[in-house]
């Protein structure tokens, strides 16, 4: 078990800068997710931590020791590849024992660890099959088992669930969480699936173009996104964005947008009172819009908007509504299954002012962080 510290890391392929001035600190035993869109350098970072790619510039510390020039064979960490990288010509047993054989463990030790891991990951009765003879979920567990038997200090997982179907993905992610709880290893987990990231990790490092946009607990990422990109990337359906500027009406400061004059909570209102005219990008999560049909205590900070429900999309336990104001501005929001809305119906909705996110359109930063 170990902590991982990365200081101003750089990496480029040819002239293409893949990782740029990256800083990251991971505590001992922590489950950290690297989240980001495809091609933003997540795999590259993992490969650098594993030692498969040389580090152009910057420092990598594990347990306080500089790891830049330690060959991958000697870094006691394990990696599960996106493709699982099971050796196709070896049985499950041989795959799992490969690393132990290389390390020249004794026969009894090897057997003991093997038994332990196939119990842990429920791989009994598969040991003599070849990788192509087992299912995707089983392959993923074999790949994990192969890494765990070596008792690594850090476990690197590169989108281990991306090749599984939805149902299997859920069980597998629960499995992973269970293993993390049981073994308490430091885990660096890569995914571009935000739901996985939100549910599994203790902290999320949100990547964009080889840089970390925000690094915090899932809750914090959701509740107070540091940048427009964070706000956009996290949460589903996507956040609504409106350009506007701060205005004072009836002695109350708010944000004038195409949608409406948006009110904020008391505390923030006080702050923006001093900056009338400032350009603003306001973000509204679909989940923070309420509908009158639902019995609700109205708050002072709620903004009322009248819309026409143009489209109602059923998503099972809830529905996504696309509404249009008279002026033609669109807003997407979520209603529960009890609240029924008919298409093409005029209605009033309320936007929760406490949960409007306010960004500076130029720096793209959250004003209130």
């Amino acid at each position: 078990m170990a902590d991982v510290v990365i200081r101003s890391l750089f990496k480029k392929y040819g002239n293409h800068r893949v990782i740029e001035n990256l800083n990251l600190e991971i505590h001992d035993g922590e489950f950290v997710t690297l989240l980001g869109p495809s091609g933003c350098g997540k795999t590259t970072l993992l490969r650098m931590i594993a030692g498969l790619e040389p580090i152009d510039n910057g420092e990598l510390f594990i347990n306080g020791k500089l790891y830049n020039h330690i060959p991958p064979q000697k870094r006691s960490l394990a990696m599960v590849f996106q493709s699982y990288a099971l050796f196709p010509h070896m049985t499950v047993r041989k795959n799992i024992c490969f690393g132990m054989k290389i390390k020249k463990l004794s026969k009894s030790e090897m057997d003991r660890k093997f038994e332990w891991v196939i119990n842990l990951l429920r791989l009994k009765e598969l040991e003599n099959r070849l990788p192509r003879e087992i299912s995707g979920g089983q392959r993923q567990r074999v790949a994990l088992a192969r890494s765990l038997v070596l008792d690594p200090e850090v476990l690197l997982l590169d989108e281990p669930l991306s090749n599984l179907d939805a149902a299997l993905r859920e069980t597998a992610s629960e499995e992973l969480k269970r293993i993390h709880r049981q073994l308490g290893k430091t885990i660096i987990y890569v995914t571009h699936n935000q739901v996985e990231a939100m549910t599994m990790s203790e902290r999320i490092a949100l990547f964009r173009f080889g840089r970390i946009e925000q690094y915090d607990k899932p809750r914090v990422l959701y509740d107070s996104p540091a940048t427009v990109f964070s706000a956009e990337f996290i949460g589903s359906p996507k956040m609504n964005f409106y350009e506007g500027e701060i205005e004072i009406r009836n002695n109350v400061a708010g944000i004038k947008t195409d949608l409406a004059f948006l009110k904020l909570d008391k505390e923030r209102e006080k702050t923006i009172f001093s900056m009338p005219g400032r350009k603003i990008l306001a973000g509204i999560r679909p989940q923070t819009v309420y509908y009158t049909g639902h019995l609700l205590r109205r708050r002072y900070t709620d903004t009322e908007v009248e819309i026409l429900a143009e489209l109602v999309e059923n998503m099972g336990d809830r529905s996504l509504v696309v509404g249009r104001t008279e002026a033609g501005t669109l807003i997407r929001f979520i209603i529960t299954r009890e609240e029924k809305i008919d298409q093409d119906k005029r209605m009033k909705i309320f936007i929760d002012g406490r949960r409007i996110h306010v960004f500076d359109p130029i720096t793209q930063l959250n004003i209130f962080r």
Partner: protein
Amino acid sequence: MLWFTGIICALVIVIGPVYLLLKYSVSDINSINTGGNPVPMWPYNPTLQAYVYLFSDSHFYQVLLNSVVISLFTIALGMILGIPASYVLGRYKLPGRKVLLLMIISVRLFPDIASVIPVVEFFIKIGMHQTYLGVILAHTLLALPYIIFIGAGAFESIPDDLEGQAIILGANRFQTFFKLLFPLAMPGLAAAAIYTFLLSWDEFIFSYFLMLGKQEIYTLTLYLNGIKYAEPQNLLAAISVCLSIPVIAFSFMVQKYMVAGISAGSVK
């Protein structure tokens, strides 16, 4: 319909000669020396006497052995040189490796018949003319570009992640090679070995220039060439069949690689 006729014609053109070859090899002497009558399309009395004669001739055994020994050693030497080279060319994304591979394979465009005189002269100088070793070295020279080409393809087709995983699991370069890359490249390398065998087995130009006049080390092709004016035709055909059988059998085994090689080496 036109198409069907075309197929039949093509099959006749392609298979006809093979049929005639087999027919000659089982012909009795009366079906060859017909005294002016047309040679029959199927022998009057099919017989295996040509083969019986062949396999009772100790010189033929010697020749067969020579062919086998020379091709086996060619395979060995070719593989020893070729596998490491194809490993590097297939596994490392070195700059210019595509160009290097292309250069290596286009060495084979240089005419054998033009490079044979220098090689023979050089071998005479260092005393390797008319020796097994000389022929083996020459055949290796011819086979090596193909081995490297096919082998590099085999190594290249192994996913990078597998190698990365082996390294992370603690394997050093040799362990990675022997436990992972080599077994996985095996089918391609086997094809390269078979290809080498074929090349050495029916190679003529270098064998001819390097061995001419030294009957003890003749290979099958040279033996066949040497007796073309002297022997009855059924014996010629029988030797031809013996020469061809392994070639045809192995060719069909490595067909996939041959096809890929011919198409890849050309369409680029």
